[in-house]
């Protein structure tokens, strides 16, 4: 995944769900800090894990449905957003939180 893909996903979430600010966690979040990271496992996947405001589970589901795996967005662009919550992610994802949860991404970015 490239930084432009992450920017695209952020823009689409803001546009389609009218949420100006949310958190990105997991491997894609490194792109917010490093525009051109070295090739490796941290940037290997094509999904962007998104925590909606207030940890809203229904909104997380909607994000996954509209922009998630196997959606029209995924089929067209080859990358996708995955709505998650702080309580529903796996231990592996939580490990990544430790690295990136402090980085909040907004449409002003």
């Amino acid at each position, binding site marked *: *995944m*490239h930084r432009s*893909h992450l920017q695209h996903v952020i823009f689409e979430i803001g546009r389609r769900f009218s949420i100006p600010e949310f958190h990105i966690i997991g491997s894609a979040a490194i792109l917010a800090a490093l525009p051109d990271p070295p*090739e*490796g496992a941290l*940037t*290997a*996947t*094509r*999904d962007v894990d998104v925590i909606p405001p207030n940890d809203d*589970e*229904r909104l*997380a*589901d909607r994000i*996954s*449905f509209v922009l*998630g*795996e*196997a*959606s*029209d967005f*995924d*089929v067209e*662009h*080859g*990358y996708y957003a*995955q*709505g*998650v*919550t*702080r*309580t*529903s*992610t*796996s*231990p*592996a*994802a939580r490990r990544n939180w430790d690295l990136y949860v402090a980085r909040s991404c907004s449409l002003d970015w």
Partner: protein
Amino acid sequence: MRHSLGEQVLQLLFTEPLGLSEPEIRRRLRPRVSQPTVWRVLNGLRSEGRLTVEGRARSTRYHGSARTDPPTLRSRHLHQRAAARLAGDPSLRDRIRARLLQLRQVNPHGRVYHERWAALLDGPLPALLRTMTEVSEQADVLRKESPFTVLISSRDRRRIFESVQAA
């Protein structure tokens, strides 16, 4: 050391890749506990994000969340559906190869996963189908960079999303 009822339920769920229904959980617990008690425990675990609920009413199944957060469970189901289509029509592999080419261009960082899928696509079909549907953390990671989801119809996808919801 004696585990709490919640921990006992989680241990049961972690041993069952396909999850368990509430009656199945209750039958396996020793000493026996009442249905309201099991429901209370399940609701408590769910509120803590420690289990995932699949399906509704009598078909509801519970999965331990350390293995199956909702997106992971959805991905497994999507790939089970894709595998079923591929088993019925192996010629779909050509379409998958085209999708893999697109993913290689979009995400060159995923090369290690793309090469694994490419090797499986060129090999025997049973091995490919097995990897697509395997219940393991390794397979869950591989599926994140999978080319197979283009085989899912929007109707099947909607069904899977309705079945597995975080909320």
